[in-house]
């Protein structure tokens, strides 16, 4: 038979009425190889197929049976090609929301995208993801999405919208007023082309790039240092010594997923690697990255510039050229300088500040250290965060001056996240025509005249060039759910071009990129291959030569001469790994994600150092007012710099969905500015305690290890001379290990998981991935306050040592799948038993909810459905769904392979048994052995740090077995003799003791 490929995604559409669906036919591309093989293997017997089929029907049945009343189940009248019921298809795509970039695979089941996974073919993100990327699939099913075009809030047709908008635009350009396209940094070459087309169609068109969380300081600095405003690409993997000044590069700074991938290359000590980078971190507020550093130095943000200057002059002295006038550097700085000089060309200094001056200083520091060309590449540049603050400031002035005739807002939300949102709003009144092409209803789209909703990225075609020469494609994984239209298509339409954006992209790629790859005969095959891979790396480099000039930095140094560090209370404004800038605030998964540092969710708050709290006698969760503008609960944060406060941005949303509205306070208005650039901290804030308090939902209330050897640590030096260092307790336990009954031997598979605590950064991507894969319910703030969060995997965070400057240690904990599981023994109805592959399995339908197992679990990983969180209960009207996660729309994200748990049932991590089954079937249909690493649980898949390894313990060569064999491996509470199937590798910090 002729090899059968999958047809274009368009054919997923059940109704083929719209004309632009048809000519997609003829496009061919593969889906993931495994899938293709599984389905085209001639040896696939009918029985096997039925088994595969039956498995999913069964699970789907389970999902809807039992206590859950059966809902709509419409069989296909004509089975569309490309959909095998119960078979997931994966489509390569690109996640870019104006802030984060990630090359992804979209898992589609029965026409619904249900899961996002990292695309390992991308050499930028290398298969890694972060929490927001994982959660982005849920935004597709956001109840608050714009469902159709509208004018002043009332629905209109696209035709009407087009005609009215075009008229207005013409009017504006004829009355030579400005036509402004306001967008976040555009990394899509095709989109840029489309915008250019638009600009050439309408005189006076102007593109204003607006980033809610900009890097304009760096752009300015690089302009003055190198003559070009650009963001270089950093190479943490090439650096032996990483010095970060408040750059949260593992969490929120520029390209965290990419940096995490690079970072861990030199942090993992497995498979014989004995070399490890050293990471020194300066910061005021406790951040994810800071808490992972080998040395964390507390530095108040307003002192950072001076310290950088001192470091620079110290370096200059050590390299022979002195700078007068600066205060004498502290010994630490001297020491640091010496250290850096020893690592010339193998070090990397980064700075998270948005101050041009500080970036200038850092530029020269790296220049002196010869890091340019070594750990910093200037010929490959990062294309995100191109926004320049002064451009936006000017726009606001122009709007208020009535110079703007038309304002086209492309999925940005200045009325929420622009510090001077009020002026912007006033200006908006004076704009002739305003239209928002935003996906989800928000503050801005509520204020514009028109709303022309864009597709969600999973519905749209798009392309991207995140870094010079690193291209990737987005393709629709589902037909648009609502009456939306790709923003680019709108622009093209208005500029008189009726081609759909997909063909536009194809044309662009054919014209500009096909030439860069001569390994394909036809463009079609090139296109199909790239669409299949999702990425195309042309190897293009920037041509503009960069030459370093020091004049600017000298001015800075001069300006600092004789200055001293002011003693004031500083406020840091940061974005967390959850809701980030607030664009995703309406995503319940992200709202309920415990912050890696504070373990709090569903709110923002003021982090305050224990010392300052004591002085001002502010108690935990007491309300405090900052600069008489916002009032938030205080959280006493160990390790916070004495006089540094921190508040997360991204909260206090309005006019958007239920989950986000009114959660926390909007801190954007607090953002200050320096030399025209937004600065992420303000010095000298006034802090006034209120005499009331406000409960903050935290998933962990006790932060000390109580001297228990749960989390084992050592230093690199100790480790190098004795690999068992810090892990003595393990060998002690092994020595005493005794059992009163014979050890169960598992023939065939014995699944196990190993977690490298040296790699784990605590970024929480695994938590969201797990929730997404396993339909883990969202319970809302009240329930989290009652300690009833449902996460199957959690990241325990403990503080060690001095409360004012503690060490932070983290440990991901999920079901340990003990071979002597205390929980299994005590279940009266045998609802939880041990599988013959060593998995501790739950039969939800058998569970009667005595909670005996949960009590008896030493790891406390079992979760109980205290209320009807999922709507699966047989009683009506008792649902507990404060975040509207059980609406029909939201339910589309559910994974049909995983049972929905009813009220009164215990649930817990299953090692993603559904994935194990799926891959077993694939292997069976191909009649071969399972390959090591073929089965990847959701948490491991999501982990950018590759900290989680899963596999067969019976296979002595499997990666997990190798990890288990390592001297660093130990088991949590092994002295209790539960025989866990999860192992942990001791954390090694590269610090001298």
């Amino acid at each position, binding site marked *: 038979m002729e090899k059968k490929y999958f047809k274009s995604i368009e054919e997923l559409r059940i109704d083929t009425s719209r004309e632009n669906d048809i000519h997609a036919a003829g496009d061919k591309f593969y889906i993931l190889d495994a899938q293709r093989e599984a389905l085209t293997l001639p040896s696939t017997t009918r029985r096997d197929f039925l088994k595969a089929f039956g498995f999913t029907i069964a699970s789907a049945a389970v999902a809807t049976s039992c206590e859950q009343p059966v809902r709509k189940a419409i069989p296909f009248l004509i089975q569309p090609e490309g959909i095998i019921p119960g078979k997931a298809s994966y489509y390569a795509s690109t996640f870019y929301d104006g802030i984060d970039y990630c090359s992804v695979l979209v898992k589609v089941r029965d026409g619904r995208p249900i899961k996002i996974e990292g695309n390992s073919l991308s050499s930028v993100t290398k298969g890694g993801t972060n929490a927001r990327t994982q959660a982005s699939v849920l935004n597709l099913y956001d109840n608050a999405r714009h469902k159709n075009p509208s004018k002043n809030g009332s629905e209109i047709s696209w035709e009407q919208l087009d005609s009215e908008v075009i008229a207005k635009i013409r009017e504006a350009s004829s009355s030579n007023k400005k036509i402004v396209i306001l967008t976040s940094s555009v990394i899509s070459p095709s989109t840029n082309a489309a915008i250019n087309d638009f600009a050439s169609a309408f005189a006076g068109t102007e593109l204003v790039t607006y980033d809610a969380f900009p890097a304009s300081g760096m752009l300015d600095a690089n302009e003055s240092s190198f003559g070009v405003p650009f963001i270089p690409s950093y190479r943490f993997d090439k650096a032996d010594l990483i010095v970060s000044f408040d750059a949260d590069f593992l969490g929120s700074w520029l390209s965290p997923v990419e940096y995490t991938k690079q970072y861990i290359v030199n942090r993992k000590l497995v498979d014989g690697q004995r070399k490890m980078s050293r990471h020194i971190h300066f910061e005021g507020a406790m951040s994810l990255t800071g808490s992972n550093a080998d040395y964390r130095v507390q530095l108040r943000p307003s002192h950072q510039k001076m310290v950088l200057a001192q470091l620079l002059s110290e370096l200059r002295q050590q390299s022979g050229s002195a700078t007068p006038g600066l205060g004498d550097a502290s010994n630490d700085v001297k020491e640091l300088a010496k250290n850096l000089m020893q690592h010339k060309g193998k070090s990397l200094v980064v700075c998270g500040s948005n101050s041009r001056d500080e970036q200038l200083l850092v530029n020269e520091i790296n220049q002196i250290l010869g890091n340019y060309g070594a750990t910093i590449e200037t010929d490959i540049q990062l294309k995100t965060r191109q926004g320049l603050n002064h451009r936006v400031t000017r726009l606001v002035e122009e709007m208020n001056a009535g110079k703007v005739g038309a304002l086209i807002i492309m999925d940005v939300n200045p009325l929420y996240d622009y510090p001077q949102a009020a002026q912007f709003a006033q200006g908006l009144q004076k704009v002739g025509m305003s239209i928002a092409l935003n996906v989800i209803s928000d503050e801005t789209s509520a204020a514009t005249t028109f709303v022309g909703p864009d597709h969600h990225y999973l519905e749209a075609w798009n392309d991207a060039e995140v870094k010079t020469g690193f291209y990737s494609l987005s393709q629709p994984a589902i037909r648009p759910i609502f009456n939306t239209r790709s923003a680019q298509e709108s622009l093209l339409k208005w500029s008189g071009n009726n081609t759909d954006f997909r063909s536009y992209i194809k044309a662009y790629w054919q014209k500009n990129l096909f030439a860069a790859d001569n390994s394909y005969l036809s463009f079609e095959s090139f296109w199909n291959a790239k669409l299949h891979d999702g990425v195309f790396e042309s190897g293009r480099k920037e041509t503009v030569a960069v030459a370093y000039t020091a004049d600017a930095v000298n001015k800075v140094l001069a300006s600092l001469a004789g200055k001293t560090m002011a003693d004031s209370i500083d406020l840091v404004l940061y974005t967390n790994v959850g809701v980030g800038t607030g664009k995703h605030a309406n995503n319940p998964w992200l709202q309920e994600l415990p912050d890696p540092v504070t373990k709090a969710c569903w709110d923002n708050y003021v982090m305050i150092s224990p010392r300052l709290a004591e002085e001002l006698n502010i108690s935990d969760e007491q309300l405090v007012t900052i600069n008489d503008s916002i009032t938030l609960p205080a959280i006493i944060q160990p390790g916070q710099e004495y006089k540094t406060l921190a508040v997360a941005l991204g909260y206090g949303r309005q006019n958007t969905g239920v989950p986000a509205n009114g959660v926390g306070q909007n801190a954007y208005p607090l953002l200050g500015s320096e030399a025209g650039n937004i600065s992420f901290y303000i010095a000298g804030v006034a802090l006034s305690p209120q005499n009331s308090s406000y409960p903050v939902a935290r998933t962990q209330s006790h932060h000390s290890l109580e001297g228990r050897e749960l989390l084992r640590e050592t230093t690199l030096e100790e480790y190098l001379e004795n690999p068992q260092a810090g892990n003595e307790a393990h060998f002690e336990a092994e020595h*005493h290990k*005794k*059992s009163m*009954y014979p050890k169960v031997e598992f023939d065939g598979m014995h699944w196990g998981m190993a977690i490298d605590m040296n790699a784990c950064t605590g970024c929480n991507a695994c938590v969201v991935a797990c929730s997404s894969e396993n339909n883990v319910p969202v319970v809302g703030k009240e329930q989290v306050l009652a300690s009833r969060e449902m996460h199957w995997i959690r990241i325990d965070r403990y503080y060690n040592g001095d409360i004012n400057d503690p060490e932070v240690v983290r440990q991901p904990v999920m079901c340990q799948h003990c071979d002597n599981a*205390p929980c299994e023994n005590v279940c009266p109805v045998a609802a939880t038993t041990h599988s013959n592959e060593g998995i501790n399995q739950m039969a939800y339908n058998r569970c009667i909810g005595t909670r005996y197992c949960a009590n008896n679990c030493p790891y406390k990983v079992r979760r109980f459905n205290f209320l009807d969180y999922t709507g699966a209960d047989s009683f009506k009207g008792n649902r507990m769904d404060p975040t509207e996660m059980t609406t029909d729309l939201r339910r589309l994200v559910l994974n049909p392979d995983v049972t929905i748990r009813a009220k009164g049932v215990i649930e817990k991590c299953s090692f993603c048994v559904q994935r194990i089954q799926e891959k077993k079937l694939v292997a069976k249909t191909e009649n071969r052995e399972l390959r090591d690493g073929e089965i990847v649980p959701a948490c491991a898949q999501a982990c950018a740090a590759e900290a989680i390894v899963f596999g067969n313990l019976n296979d002595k060569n499997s990666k997990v077995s190798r990890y288990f064999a390592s001297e660093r491996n130990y088991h949590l509470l092994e*002295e209790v*003799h539960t025989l866990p199937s999860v192992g942990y590798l001791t954390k090694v910090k590269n610090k001298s003791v």
Partner: protein
Amino acid sequence: MDNLTFKLDKKLITIFLVMIAVGLLSLVIGYFTGAGGNRIAANLLLNNYYFLSMGLIGLFFVAVHTIAESGWQTSMQRVGEAMSAFIPVGGLLLVLFFILGGLHAIYPWTHEDHLDEILLKKVAYLNVPFFYIRLVVFLGAWSLLAHFLRKASLALDVNGDMQYLKKMRTLSAVFVVVFAVTSVVSSWDWLMSLDPHWFSTLYGWYVFSSMLASGFAMIILVVSLLKNMGYMTHVNDEHMHDLGKYLFGFSIFWAYLWFSQYMLIWYANMPEETVYFIERHKYFTEVFYVNLFLNFVVPFLLLMTRRAKRVSGVLVPVAIIVFIGHWVDLYMMIMPGAVGGEHAGIGIVEVGLTIGYLGLFGLVTFWSLAKAPLASKKHPYYKESMEYHTNY
């Protein structure tokens, strides 16, 4: 008919003396056949403890029934008192045993020079001086109380003056309270600390239940022996029936505690606890099950019927078996820790020493029996006890 004044005749004395001689001999033989210091020490401890506990149960028997104001047992109260006469003797031997190197020989925690970190945590309790203080307090309290109770009981027999009965009640109450605590703590000191890492909260009561069963077996044996010799004819089937019920009940009680301790440790399977039974399973498999058979299965099945408890032909053999059974039980508790699985065994030393101690115990008991009428006629409940009949 005066079968109430017991005379300790030559024949009996010689028998006991011979037995003691056998014991001493076996000690010598054992020493020269290289049974090993530990093993001899362990056996001395075992028998010392075992027969001391016989004396204690004798006293406990009297005390409990006195405060319970029950009448039936007054007829054999003297037997309990006589057994308690062994307390000071056994106590003294125990002290000597510890002082003359027994302590250092078999108690690992006495080796201060090399203690692992677990034992170091316990030093506040497990240290030699404190151990001796406790030892002396326990033995002192027991001996004194035994002495005064006996005194009061004899005084009561003079003219049945109620004040002595009151006195007996007070003393009994005091003893029961003291014994409740000391029996537990002493079992930790002398037995549990032989495996100093291991611990079990139930241990003290488990040991106590073992004492009870064996102690009542001994009471039955002494009484029947006396009856055989034609004394205490006033002790009728009803009395024996009750003693039989005790033996039956306490054997089940012992089994119950044995099971509770074993099952809970087996179930949780935590190494720090399981090590105790794993050791015993490994080296003492047969003994492990024999223990259960002798102390539970035999009395449970044989003493179930009413008849069995009333017919000495059944009661006495069962009593003997239980007596041996709890010796084995104690063997299980002591040997693995004191001697270690490889070196422990049952040979001349074990048998001989036991015979020796039995002789000594017999001698002391019967000697004390001979010093007073076998029943206290003036006891207010004496008549009750004589006219004692019940249909169950």
